[in-house]
């Protein structure tokens, strides 16, 4: 581990209908969770181009979280299935370039699962903190 004060940089790309709403619910319920996450809202995880995630890692992200609706619950019928397939494939790409595939996570958090959202963030932050800074960090700038 690099530095004691090191904080992971984690980006979350989350869907408007389920995970973003779930994250809002965690807020309404004042469920506390770690601060080391920044969210970008898209309408559906189906929108998440694998290149966005590669760009994030290239920019020095320590972890990326993609979160959508549960299977069968997608507001757009099946965007989350397609996203999950892409993330699965992308994980093997990450492994091949020597990046721990645990740095990319896809989760499914519904609009009513505020508590689960908080748990997911805790878990992601723990995982990434354990892995330490991304090896791509030094090339990032």
């Amino acid at each position, binding site marked *: 581990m690099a530095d004691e004060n090191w904080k992971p*940089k984690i*980006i979350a*790309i989350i869907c*408007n*209908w*389920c995970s*973003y*709403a779930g*994250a*809002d619910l*965690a*807020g*309404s319920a*004042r*469920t*506390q*969770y770690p*601060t080391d996450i*920044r*969210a*970008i*809202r*898209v*309408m*559906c995880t*189906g*929108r*998440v*181009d694998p*290149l*966005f995630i590669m*760009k*994030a890692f290239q*920019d*020095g*992200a320590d972890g990326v979280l993609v979160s959508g*609706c549960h299977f*069968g*619950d997608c*507001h*757009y*019928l*099946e*965007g989350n299935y*397609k*996203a999950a397939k*892409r993330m699965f494939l992308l994980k093997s790409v990450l492994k091949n370039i020597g990046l721990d595939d645990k740095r990319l996570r896809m989760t499914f958090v*519904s*609009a*009513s*699962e505020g508590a689960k959202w*908080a748990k997911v963030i805790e878990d992601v932050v723990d995982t990434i903190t354990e892995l330490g800074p991304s090896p791509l960090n030094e090339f*990032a*700038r």
Partner: protein
Amino acid sequence: MAEVKKYEEPRIGVFVCHCGTNIAGSIDVKAVMEYASTLPNVVIADDYQYMCSTPGQNKIAEAIEEQKLTGVVVAACSPRLHEPTFRAATKEGGLNPFRFEMANIREQNSWVHMHQPEEATAKAKDAVRIAVAKASLLEDLIPKSVPVEQAAMVVGGGVGGMQAALDLASAGIKTYLVEKDPTIGGRMSQLDKTFPTLDCSQCILTPKMVDVFRHENIELLTYTEVEAVEGYIGNFDVTLRKKARGVLTTEEAEARGFVGGGCNGCGDCEDVCPVIRPNPFELGMSPMKAIYIYHPQVSPLIYTIDFDSCVKCGLCVDVCGDKKAIDLNAVDEFETVKVGTIVLATGYDIFPVEEKHEWGYKNYDNVITSLEFERLICASGPTGGHLIRPSDGATPKRVGFVLCAGSRDNTGVGKPYCSRFCCMYSLKHAHQIIEKIPGAVPYIFYMDIRSFGKMYEEFYYRIQDEGAKFIRGRVANILEDPVTKNLHVNTEDTLLGRPIDVEVDMVVLAAAVQPSEKTEATRRLFGVSCSQDGWLLEAHPKLNPCGTTTAGVYLAGVCQGPKDIPDTVAQAEGAASAASIPIHRGEVELEPYFAVCLEDICAGCGMCVNLCPYQALALVEKDGRRVMQVTEAKCKGCGTCGGFCPGGAIRMQHFTTPQIVAQIDAFLLGGEQ
């Protein structure tokens, strides 16, 4: 496509909201505002107590005019709450409303990091930087208006569904009322009396059923289920499965050339039918033939054949004779109808209370559920209204009522929520026993009596005065005396602080309610979310309890959460009103988030065509080569195509690749490293 205005340089205004102390309590708003003013493209940064207030909104409009802004960022609550407000303010200032971006620093920041002011402030700065990056690339978008089909659909023909259908129809809207059972009426038709007025349930329900049946604007589709749903607000195509009924209505018979034929409800067929099976309407407590009606007041009054038990002997066909109403070879039929809006009123089922083994339901003869009690005490029920013990037919004198039977249960077996109407109907049951059986004593085992409605608390006092015994304590177990079949109810009387054992002749479990069996399948068809306990999720728990996140789909009654009859009817009227608005307006605006094909780049590979769940994309020949074409009316803007296009030839409006990449870069490369 609308002309996109070109601006030389982005000029962004950032407005940070205190939200009283909601945000300012853990985030240093001034520091965020000052930081924002240092960001590239930002020409003005300001803060205000409540940005959503009129002075706050005026700040935005004024700044747009004075500073010639090209984009607006408000750092405040969730865009799911106030994006429409600030878009309107942006428009007020003379800018296209889609040149607005929101940074969520309340729900996803100050409220979840209440004790980490430094980190929360840093996170808010990042959020503002990310939003500014996107705002710098936002473009003018024009929402598309589409016409609304002048018809509505209500799914579920219980009291909620009927009320919604009546309201819609009376507002002049053609309404399809779809019910899976052979008759409308729902759960309420199974009840004997209603609390606290003690109205006879059927007596107040059947006039409504008749109104529904007679209404010129209602097309009643009983014994019908929703098979598939396509489309969007204003233009839903709903495919219905009309289950094989085996009996023709007068109209259907006429269509087949049997003028004057069709079922008239005479019941001769039922008399000759040799098949006997349990009656689901009476919860299996009385027999029923394979050709049946639930009760004499059914609407429509047409018999139905249960083809699972029918042996096709043909006796009914013979006795029906010239009416030729029976068709033993009937098959399911499908019909697609176009509607503009939809109300879901799919109701509830009783929690399978046998899962709580300690109370012995289905093991002990004399333990019944409250719904079974309703049928037993009802004059049109299996016993003609004489309450009897199932074990020996005797009249019970001591009856125990176990409240919260599966409700307010955190053991994982029952339901964590309050089912809301069990307290009140159990009080009503206690009253009915005292009234009908001289000398009878009801024992009510309760945790709390929740008599929250109008005249409910008064009703509670009345039952106390009538002599019901109230014992505060959750029932630990019920044991049966194998000889007398009497029951020993064991609990702690928490007011006396000692364990007690009450011997009773019969126990009625006030079972919890749960979403009806078909709710899960139905909600998936309509793209509606559910809360953790399976009830359909409203758009906002307080301010939009009838709406859903799917535009054009509304909720009524218990499918949204447990509620009693007055609340169900009230919500149904609300849902009907909400569902009638788009229809009466005649057109709806769709968010302009659709896909756009960049034809110069598109290689015509067609990968996107199969990815689209809405068949909105197609390959067409243009200038001698294949390119993709979007049907804007079909595109819902999910971006699944845009996330995949190998050439980057699909632009998702408002969520373009440059905009999202700018956000990623702004977070990871733009901050204080």
